[in-house]
């Protein structure tokens, strides 16, 4: 698709530990040394459970390589904060999208797909498709 412009991935969880761990997991499963920019945005920023709009905005800016940014969230305020920031218009990089996907499985699918150089729509589709993966 493009030379070096990979889609960036932002992982928003109520828990800083969860966001960081899922980022580590997804990058690890995508293969050692993957160039996909992945940034966690977990917790309130003061160590509590919750969502920080500032952490989300900073994470999105840090992974923006010009190919778009896919944002995956856990639930509640994480979803609402990202939606509110997107509605704001200028808080997140251009071509940032909230991806409707399960957090862990979607993050793995998104990072693996982004590593192939796929565009934002393909990354979004791969992450959303993770909903169809049944375990039983």
């Amino acid at each position, binding site marked *: 698709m493009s030379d070096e412009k990979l889609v960036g991935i932002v992982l928003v969880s109520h828990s800083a530990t969860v966001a960081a761990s899922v980022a580590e997991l997804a990058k690890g499963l995508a293969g050692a040394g993957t160039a996909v920019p992945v940034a966690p945005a977990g917790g*309130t*920023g003061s160590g*509590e*459970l*919750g*969502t*920080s*709009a*500032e952490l989300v905005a900073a994470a999105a800016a840090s992974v923006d390589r010009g190919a778009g940014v896919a944002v995956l969230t856990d639930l*509640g*305020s994480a979803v*609402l*904060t990202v*939606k*509110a*920031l997107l*509605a*704001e218009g200028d808080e997140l990089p251009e071509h940032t999208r909230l991806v409707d996907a399960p957090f862990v499985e979607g993050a793995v699918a998104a990072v693996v797909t982004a590593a192939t150089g796929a565009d934002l729509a393909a990354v979004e589709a791969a992450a959303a498709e993770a909903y169809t993966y049944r375990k039983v």
Partner: protein
Amino acid sequence: MLDADFFRRWMTVTAASVDREAERLTALDSPIGDADHGSNLQRGFAAVRAALEKEPPATPGAVLIQSGRLLISTVGGASGPLYGTLLRRTGKALGDATEVGERELAEALRAGVDAVMQLGGAAAGDKTMVDALLPAVDALGDSFAAARTAAEEGAVATTPLRARKGRASYLGERSVGHQDPGATSAALLIAGLVDAASDTEAGDE
């Protein structure tokens, strides 16, 4: 007519009532939520108050847009983007006017409530802040006092409802019998209109 100072007062008196009621809001949020509603809103409105004291915006719309933006960035829970969207969208609907009428405020607030319902996907009767805001907006055409009463009655009326949105919805039937904290804080916001208006009148005399 309502000027920027009225809207600044509205935010300031709301900050004060959130401070006063923070423990009650958190207590309401304990059985059906995660016991942070009072402290989250307190943090958000403290930031709003501080910013307005430092440099008050010149128009009603700008006061609400700035306040909404601050709530989104400082609250840390779902009430941040919800109240933030409410104020920001209301502020945008007020435009650049330096003074607005009560009727314009009622229309703008309705646009704000619509935006909240769209963001959270909540409808009337889901046991959320919407259950206080919708009747308040309907009554706002009559008077601020009527809106306050409608919001307070709407909040009380959430008690027998079963939650269909947010964390409380996971509790199913067990959410019945508790007044919704979001509807309760929304009633504080609407009550702030009455206080802001009486402050203005006192100031004019």
